């Protein structure tokens, strides 16, 4: 049952070294190197902002937050989530040499791959926060919530990869299935628009079921709303829903990992 925890025991240094390798692999041989980790999301975000502000003429503010500020604080955590979902699912197949050529704690593959993405996220947070502060949203005590939501986000998607990575390693169909979900996931979540403002009786609850919304809202609470997450409308309920989903994802992850682990070397 707790195979995954056993595999991580006493392996901190190994995991950190492999996370570094993963970063090097991603950005090697480019003049800008890790700079691309910043350039790429900044450019994409600019395109989205352009489409909203200039294209849809839907600039102005979201609530009382300027559109760009709103998008930025949503897109930066989303950028991690997107990488975590995609590269998390691919991680075992991409590192198959560890699985088929040596005795390897396979579940640590997901950990070091996602850690490397977390490093990128933390690097991205530096210019993001610089902009946020310069634009007048100075840090308050609420900003400390970052140290709750950032680890929560990491752990949630790590546990999700316990299911998706072995399944994707087993069958490429599953990996393609995940790839094709991504765009939908992005636009159905409140990254670019305000999920808290949807009308109706049922729709707001559907929005609250989406863990991406909970995490993105947490980031905004920390840096632009300057509110505690439980002070948000239905904040406590949303947190409890997320907690429940987290437990479910963890249980499914352990189940799927344990059931597929020993079959992996034979199919990769």
């Amino acid at each position, binding site marked *: 049952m707790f195979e995954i925890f056993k595999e991580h025991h006493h392996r901190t240094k190994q995991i950190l*070294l492999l996370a570094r390798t993963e970063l*090097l692999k991603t950005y090697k041989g480019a003049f800008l190197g890790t700079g691309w980790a910043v350039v790429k999301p900044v450019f994409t975000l600019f395109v989205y902002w352009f489409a909203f502000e200039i294209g849809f003429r839907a600039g102005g503010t979201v609530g009382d937050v300027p559109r760009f500020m709103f998008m930025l604080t949503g897109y930066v955590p989303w950028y991690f989530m997107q990488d975590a979902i995609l590269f998390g699912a691919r991680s075992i197949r991409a590192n198959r040499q560890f699985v088929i050529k*040596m*005795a390897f704690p396979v579940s640590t593959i997901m950990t070091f791959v996602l850690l490397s993405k977390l490093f990128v996220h933390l690097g991205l947070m530096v210019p993001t926060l610089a902009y946020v502060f310069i634009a007048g949203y100075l840090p308050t005590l609420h900003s400390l919530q970052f140290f709750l939501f950032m680890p929560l986000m990491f752990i949630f998607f790590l546990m999700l990869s316990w299911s998706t990575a072995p399944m994707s390693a087993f*069958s490429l169909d599953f990996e393609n299935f995940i790839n094709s979900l991504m765009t939908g996931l992005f636009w159905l979540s409140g990254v670019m628009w305000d999920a808290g403002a949807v009308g109706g009786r049922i729709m707001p609850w559907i929005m609250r079921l989406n863990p991406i919304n909970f995490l993105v809202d947490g980031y905004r609470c920390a840096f632009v709303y300057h509110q505690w997450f439980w002070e948000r409308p239905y904040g406590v309920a949303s947190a409890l829903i997320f907690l429940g989903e987290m437990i479910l994802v963890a249980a499914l992850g352990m189940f799927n990992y344990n059931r597929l682990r020993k079959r992996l070397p034979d199919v990769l």
Partner: protein
Amino acid sequence: MLEAQKSPCRSDEPVIVFKNVSKVYTLYRNNKEQFLALFHQSKKLRKHRALDHVSLEIYPGESVGIVGNNGAGKSTLLKMITGVTFPTGGEVNVRGRVSALLELTAGFSTELTGRENIYLKGYLLGLNEDQIKEIEADVVAFAELEDYIDQPVRTYSSGMKMRLGFAININTNPEILVIDEALSVGDATFQRKCNAKIRELIKGGVTVIFVSHAAGAVKDICTRAIYLKRGRKIYDGNVDEAVALHGATK
């Protein structure tokens, strides 16, 4: 007391125990079958039995040869000892640090330097930082890579990579050494150095599992041999006998 006297060299607990071990590979005919196998394991799929109820015990300090034709199950057996693959039936127990001279360059990260790779591979083999520090100099010297050790491994020639891989594997003080006869590391001089090192380890009491097609090499190194045929253990014991059996059925 009597028991112990009967086999004085086998007074210890076995380091490797196979209890009725079978390995059945599922052969997926297409991607659809493999996808569906994610959700339930159909009984109708084609199977290949690579190992068939193999039981064996290997004791500390033994040098055991595994002989058999292609497809006899030698690789599968080795992969189970090294912990890469898992039995579908029965039980495998391995005590002690296993070092496999099979995939010498497996686990290297080409973006890291040679020195960093010593650490990486050391961690992978279950050593801690202090233990790796201790062997670091020996590894560098053995691999003859003094000038290049702080360069990224991607700049190494294949011979250099092999040398580094061999040097790490052999210097981690393994308790069980798994060797494939097809192993070749660089030029003749280095190969001789490797052979000498392997012999030194054997003298030092390491347990050796040696896989080979060649009768000579097995007779040379091993004190016991196991003959496998189509996944079954046919013979286990005297080296000459096993080699003769293998030769007779070729």
